[in-house]
């Protein structure tokens, strides 16, 4: 009937079935929507506009004690869906729980204690300077109700009947489908507009058919031929938007005697035709990365000024020139890619073709995902391709790409800096960023890091890893766009998806 707004069908994560788990502390197995739609964070960080922070459950935050104490002022009048008020106790409880249970502390926050200063004021104390972890603290930690969680073991609790502060409530659950309906008492008046969200289970295969047949309103899927399968000649309704959420780079293993030579990396850099990779392997869904690797647009302020307009150019002759001093017999590498990532496998093939032109022999080897994770983690590879997530600001990306602390010896699994870049200057810059709250200073440090990226080539950025988002405008409009990137458009990013939902309005308005 007219007037009754239609439900929105959403597909976030490929899955055959759902398990009944709505515990926001969990990383895996928790159903999408738990954070953002049911539970909320203190603040909202828009990754598409680094530096933009919006108050959410907290109205403001304030650092003290050289980044070791953080005080939040909370929003008043927010209620849990069971009617109990949201207070500073809940916030303190949430952070206490994380410090009590390190396995739930995914952001590795070094919490030393919490203190409730007033019903709407709470202070969290840290062992070390934690300016750089603000996103993890306030942007990525869902606050849970103390009065319900204190009775449970948060590690194993599956929270089948979640009670949150968010715009939605869980209304129905089965292994193939769960539904959320709007929280009538939500603290943002008149919102949300979408009354019901349905989450049917789709596997990676089924989702393609689902998109083709118009079953899904909002998805975040890689679609091999988006025009044919999804758009189907209706670009006005069947829209998509793939902003960057990180960078995919070619990793040269710097412990390799040949690849550790800058001129070799330089030659590779000049030989690889990134435009073609983007067009053929990535089907034009994304863009060639900025040489600093900083996601664009959005990261302008973090770019070193002299490289603002830098771009890659293929120069086979110069590459050959650079390789003159290297024994051609040594220019043989294997390029390790995870087989399931077909676009990377194709990209690897293109890189192979490009490098062959400058006399570098590359053997591409596709391996199982876990094998790839293990080999790259332990540094047992020559060349590989890997994505690095952007995080709330380019700093996070730089840190995980370059911090020498992360580069473990070959044979030990690393959690970042897989190419094993060791440079004291880089480390100094990264530490400088973390030691300040001042945005300008942070930007300066990041610019320096960008300069290192361009000049020393610790890794070779290829293209931005796109955030997938397909959405239809026949039911609702107001989706994020390149013109208005108010949140990550992908349904699988939290809490951004909730922010998007709160922005939707019925079509035709």
């Amino acid at each position, binding site marked *: 009937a007219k007037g009754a707004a239609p439900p929105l069908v959403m597909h976030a994560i490929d899955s055959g079935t759902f*398990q009944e788990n709505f515990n926001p502390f969990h990383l895996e197995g928790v159903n999408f929507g738990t954070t953002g739609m049911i539970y909320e964070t203190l603040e909202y960080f828009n990754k598409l506009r680094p530096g933009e922070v919006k108050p959410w459950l907290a109205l403001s935050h304030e650092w003290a004690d050289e980044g070791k104490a953080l005080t939040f002022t909370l929003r008043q009048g927010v209620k849990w869906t069971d009617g109990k008020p949201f207070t500073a106790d809940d916030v303190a409880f949430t952070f206490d729980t994380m410090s009590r249970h*390190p396995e739930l502390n995914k952001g590795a926050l070094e919490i030393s204690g919490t203190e409730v200063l007033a019903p709407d004021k709470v202070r969290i104390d840290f062992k070390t300077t934690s300016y750089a972890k603000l996103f993890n603290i306030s942007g990525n930690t869902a606050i849970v109700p103390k009065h319900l969680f204190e009775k449970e073991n948060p590690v194993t609790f*599956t929270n089948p009947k979640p009670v949150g502060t968010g715009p939605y409530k869980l209304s129905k659950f089965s292994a193939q489908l769960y539904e959320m309906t709007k929280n009538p008492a939500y603290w943002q008046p008149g919102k949300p507009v979408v009354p019901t969200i349905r989450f049917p289970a789709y596997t990676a295969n*089924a989702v393609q058919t689902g998109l083709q047949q118009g079953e899904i309103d909002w998805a975040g899927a890689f679609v091999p031929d988006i025009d044919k399968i999804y758009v189907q000649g209706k670009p006005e309704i069947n829209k998509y938007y793939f902003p960057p959420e990180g960078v995919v780079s070619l990793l040269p293993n710097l412990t390799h005697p040949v690849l550790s030579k800058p001129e070799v990396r330089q030659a590779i850099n000049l030989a690889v035709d990134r435009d073609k990779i983007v067009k053929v392997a990535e089907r034009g869904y994304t863009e060639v990365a900025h040489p600093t690797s900083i996601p664009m647009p959005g990261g302008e302020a973090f770019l070193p000024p002299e490289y603002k307009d830098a771009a890659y150019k293929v120069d086979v002759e110069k590459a050959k020139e650079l390789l003159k001093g290297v024994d051609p017999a040594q220019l043989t590498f294997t390029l390790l890619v995870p087989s399931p990532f077909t676009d990377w496998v194709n990209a690897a093939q293109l890189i192979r073709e490009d490098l062959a032109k400058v006399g570098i022999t590359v053997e591409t080897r596709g391996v199982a995902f*876990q094998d790839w994770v293990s080999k790259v983690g332990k540094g047992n590879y020559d060349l590989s391709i890997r994505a690095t997530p952007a995080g709330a600001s380019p700093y996070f990306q730089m840190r995980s790409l370059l911090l020498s602390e*992360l580069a473990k010896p070959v044979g030990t699994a690393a*959690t970042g800096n897989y190419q094993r870049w060791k440079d004291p200057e880089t480390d100094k810059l990264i530490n400088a960023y973390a030691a300040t709250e001042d945005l300008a200073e942070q930007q300066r440090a990041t610019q320096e890091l960008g300069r290192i990226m361009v000049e020393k080539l610790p890794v070779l950025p290829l293209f931005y890893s796109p955030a997938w988002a397909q959405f239809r405008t026949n039911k609702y409009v107001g989706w994020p766009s390149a013109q208005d990137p108010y949140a990550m458009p992908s349904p699988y990013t939290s809490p951004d998806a909730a922010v998007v939902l709160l922005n939707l309005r019925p079509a035709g308005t």
Partner: protein
Amino acid sequence: MRFLTRRLGFYLLTAWAAVTLNFLIPRLMPGDPVDLLVARLKGNVDPAAIEAMKKAFGISDAGLWTQYVDYLGNLFRGELGRSITFFPTEVSTVIADSLPWTIGLVGVATLISYVVGTSLGVLMAWKRGTWLDGVLPAATFLHAVPYFWVALVLVFVFGSTLQWFPGSRAYGLEVTPGFDAEFLASMAYHATLPAVTIVLASMADRILGMRNVMVTTLGEDYVVMAEAKGLTSRRVMWAYAARNAILPNITSFALSLGFVVGGSVLTEIVFSYPGIGSMLLKGVENEDFPLMQGIFLVISLAVLVANLLADLAYVILDPRTRQ
């Protein structure tokens, strides 16, 4: 009876070996689940949390032997641990949720394939030289087509193009699980294509196996004698020839169940069927030791039990093994 006792002993031994291998194999896998988790979460986890997570997942650094003893002890108590992929759900819950689907699908499909395939095999042997011989090349072809290829073609033709049958899921989104007619109908409707895949791809084995044994059996004196006795063809064919020819096929049938289950992994994946095959692949992809072990164990034990049942059936059907 002695025969059965001996077999039972053998199965226990095999079960123990399977359990032990199940324990060892996942531990020989490269990488570890937390690394994978980190990789899949694209670095949203800080390394400091990893140690704690390992502990929570029950990944211990204890010696292999201690782990083995613990593992056996837990098994005896029926504890399979918690899944890592679906943390903190218990593996037994995951299996309990998915196993019925597989058993239902694979069980019914295998049963159909067995009954139809065996009957066809019998008929083909009986009516050699008629048009039924034409089934042979068709069966041969189906025998050689990859399971998933058949499945994908079926999905494309009957699922996407004609839209006669759903190409994914175990039941419609609109129905709520429960034992009512609507749910059961939806279930059967959704199971059609996957079942057809399994039947098509596994029936050939049954047809060919039965035909060959049957042809040999038809040459036996007792079949000629039955015919000479003036019995009806039906009776000769079923009570004399097929009844005997089925015996050597029982064992191979039980063993092939393992292969059918293996094949159903692919089928389940194509059809997004929430069975144990999909779970297995998920477990393998995520190096979810507890889940993989649990599923390994269930499949192995199921095949063992099927074999034991086949032995039992053999004893019941073949008076020569009684005594």
